[in-house]
């Protein structure tokens, strides 16, 4: 058994959900995604038992392409994130009225398949294919099931598509160039290449175009808030919980090992790119009146910090970035679920029209409160572990970096708690507010359990990713490029 089984299961899930018809699609999708989660858990156990779980088949001789899937800790950690969030995202849609459900769930499963493939692929060409495949389902999910005025939505989604597609084409050109040098797309061959500094700078920038748009970093973020707001909540969760991690993961996996010289010489600039996102996202979030947009901008601030951590190029920065990717994935899904519950019941997105929910829905209030605290990185939560490690690594580069990065926590606490106060507390709202249903409660409980478990005991993840981080560090810092 190897990692390909998970991909096959996810793809089969997409097909089965489509075939099972509108009535059963949601259940089929949930079932297959749970099976995929189980399969990736088994693969993870095999990996921990020191068995090889990566695979590689020859796909095409000329050009030389392999379907190579990685079985190392970093990829498996991201795979677990994907397969764990997928059932939660599907579960969160239960009880919502979704038209043409079979296509909707099939697209979600297909997107899970493409994203898992992106995290696993070790051949640049296959990786690019998965990277692009992930774009198509989210395009349709946001376009067809989104909310708001049709024209606005279409404009936002098309902008998003063209923007990200444009970025990835530069990455494709970079891969084509690398292929002419190495004669292969395999990660191991590409990381071995001895490129001149000028070449590395161009390749670094081409990758940066793709990743900075996907993550997104300032000033490539303009698509984000509108799409997060217009997309259906499941789509927003997919985007913010998993898809933007594709960009962050790719920085670690592809950009830094292939072009380390460029990364080293312009490190400060790219850390500033990340920190600019932190500042901008937090300040804009302070002034948001729309609940989903506020969360979108808070997400912008968090991922800016993760990117800054990755670009510090030290061990703590890289592992902190991975920890923070996973914890942010869970936290943001929880937050968007809470936002969706509120928006669904009050039929408004404006924070000013909300309020007084606490007295009507005590269970929901406490769950939402925990999610808010987790997102502002309260100690004992998973986010604290990640954020602290990243800040620690920034501190070693320059004290100022850590101070500015630390603003996420301070400003984050301010705008999140202010939002919580306005939305949940205050005078009892006239509108009735139903407390959480079983499926919503279950989703929250799982997310909260994960948040606290890894907040108190992050060692399993650290152990899992340590060898990969070590290898990447070696590729970045070793003088002669040997593998």
């Amino acid at each position, binding site marked *: 058994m190897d990692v390909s089984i998970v991909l096959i299961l996810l793809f089969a899930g997409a097909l089965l959900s489509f075939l099972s018809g509108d009535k059963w699609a949601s259940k089929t999708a949930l079932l297959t995604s749970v099976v995929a989660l189980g399969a990736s858990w088994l693969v993870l156990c095999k990996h921990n038992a020191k068995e090889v779980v990566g695979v590689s088949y020859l*796909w*095409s*001789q*000329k*050009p030389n*392409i392999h379907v190579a899937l990685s079985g190392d800790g970093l990829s498996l950690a991201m795979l677990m994130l994907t397969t764990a969030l997928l059932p939660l995202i599907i579960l969160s849609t239960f009880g919502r009225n979704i038209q043409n459900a079979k296509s909707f769930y099939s697209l979600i499963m297909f997107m899970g398949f493409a994203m898992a493939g992106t995290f696993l692929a070790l051949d640049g*060409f296959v990786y*690019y*294919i998965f990277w*692009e*495949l992930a774009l*198509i389902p989210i395009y*349709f999910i946001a*376009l*067809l099931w989104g909310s708001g005025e*049709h024209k606005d939505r*279409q404009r936002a989604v*098309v902008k998003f*598509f*063209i923007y990200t*597609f*444009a970025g990835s*084409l*530069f990455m*494709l*050109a970079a891969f*084509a*160039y690398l*292929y*002419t040098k190495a004669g292969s797309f395999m990660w191991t061959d590409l990381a071995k290449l001895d490129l001149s500094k000028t070449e590395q700078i161009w390749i670094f920038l081409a990758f940066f175009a793709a990743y900075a748009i996907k993550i997104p970093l300032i000033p490539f973020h303009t698509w984000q808030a509108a799409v997060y707001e217009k997309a259906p909540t499941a789509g927003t969760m997919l985007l913010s919980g998993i898809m933007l991690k594709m960009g962050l993961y790719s920085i670690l996996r592809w950009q830094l090992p292939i072009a380390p010289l460029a990364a080293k010489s312009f490190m400060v600039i790219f850390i500033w790119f990340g920190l600019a996102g932190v500042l901008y996202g937090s300040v804009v979030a302070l002034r948001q009146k729309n609940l989903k947009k506020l969360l979108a901008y808070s997400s912008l601030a968090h991922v800016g910090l993760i990117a800054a951590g990755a670009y510090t190029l030290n061990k703590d920065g890289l592992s902190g970035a991975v920890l923070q990717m996973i914890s942010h994935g869970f936290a943001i899904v929880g937050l968007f679920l809470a936002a969706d519950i509120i928006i669904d019941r009050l039929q408004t997105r404006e924070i000013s029209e909300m309020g007084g929910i606490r007295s009507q829905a005590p269970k929901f209030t406490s769950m939402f409160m925990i999610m808010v605290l987790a997102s502002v990185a309260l100690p004992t939560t998973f986010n604290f572990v990640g954020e602290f490690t990243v800040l620690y690594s920034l501190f070693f580069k320059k004290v100022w970096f850590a101070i500015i990065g630390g603003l996420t926590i301070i400003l984050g606490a301010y705008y999140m708690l202010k939002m919580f106060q306005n939305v949940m507390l205050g005078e009892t709202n006239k509108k009735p507010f139903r407390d959480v249903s079983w499926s919503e409660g279950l989703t929250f409980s799982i997310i909260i359990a994960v948040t606290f478990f890894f907040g108190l005991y992050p060692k399993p993840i650290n152990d899992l990713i340590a060898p990969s981080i070590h290898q990447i560090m070696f590729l970045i810092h070793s003088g002669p490029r040997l593998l």
Partner: protein
Amino acid sequence: MNTLLIITGLGVLCLLLEILNFRKGIVPFTVVGLLVALGVTMNDYGLQKGFYGNMIVVNNFSVAFSSIFIVLAILLISMSDDFYRREHAKISDFVAIKVFMLAGAVAMVSFGNLSMFFLGIEVLSISLYILAASNRMNVRSNEAGMKYFLLGSFASGIILFGICLIYGAMGTFDIAEISELSSSAELPDWFFIGIVLLTIGMLFKIAAVPFHFWAPDVYEGSPALTTSIMSTLAKIVAIATFYKLLTGMNAQLSVAYEWVLLSVSIASMTLGNIMALRQENVKRMLAFSGIAHAGYMLMAFLNLANSASVLWYYAAAYALAGVAAFAVVLNVCRDKQDENIYNFNGFGKKHPVMAALLTGALLSMAGIPVFAGFFAKFGLFMHAINAGYLVVVIAAVINSIISVGYYFKLILAMYTKDALDPVENPKPIYVVVAAIALLLNLAMGLFPSLVNNLI
């Protein structure tokens, strides 16, 4: 070699069948005949031989291209029965002309002699002039035929003039002899002038900028089935022939010449894509997109020697996607006045299968992975990088981004707008043709090693 005989004979038989009053059977009969021709052609694979005093030379290049032409012709001709349902009495003429055109196309990629090349191009062009004007009662169609004929015959004249100059320089029409002479002797200037004139003529046939002005009007005015032939089959025939001419004569192309081709390539893709963005008529949009694709394909002409398989792959991927797209367009606009984009509103809800097929075809043309169009584009980019022309790759990347704009305009119309008309059942033949074309395209994408070492 037998391919050419079978196809020509098939065309004559089509005409005879009408006399025997056997009109209903013409299309199936032709399709079967073409399948036989396809089998015979593929059987020649690996052969390297000249026939009729080297008039026709069969090699892997000619076999690979002839096969894809025949496949496209089968797909296109099988839609004739429904397309010409109002003039079914004349079905034999429509089918026979298409078969003759295919004979011209096969001659164009397997010539061993410039006179045979000219025969081929004239057979192809004259068939297309007739097909463009074949909707006799329609002013637009007449205009298209007239325009195409006037400009096309002018281009043929230029080609002929070029052939004369080459004959004057070399004293022979035979490609192999010209190839030998061009690498050894001191060449007179008019050999190169001849090459330039040939280039101009062929760029006209390809509809590359700045020789593209006829294309949008002719494509829009012609009956839709003719447009689909012109923008898929005829376009790749012209490209392949141009490639064969340049490689066959082994002309040492100067750097300046390569830069001219490069500029034509960049200009074609840029202008084609930008103009396509503004079109409301789907046929016209696909015409401009065809100009852009011609621009991409010209990238294969930089560093000619080893790009035959890259060119074949791109041509096949583009043409198959084009046929799939046109099959859906033909069905949607079956009883409509024009091919305006609003005819596609709400198509995704009315006919999910056909809408998915059209979406797939457009995604392939835009170069989204898994479809063959992506691998084709990637192969071309890599070829151009290897040849050392990064400029054109950057231009092509930017153009690919622009092209997403108009391909998605159509996809958006299908999935997000409300339908104007009530649901009609799609004609099965169009679904079948689109599905086969797209499946072939997908198969090329999923198993690229099956086909990319053919030449």
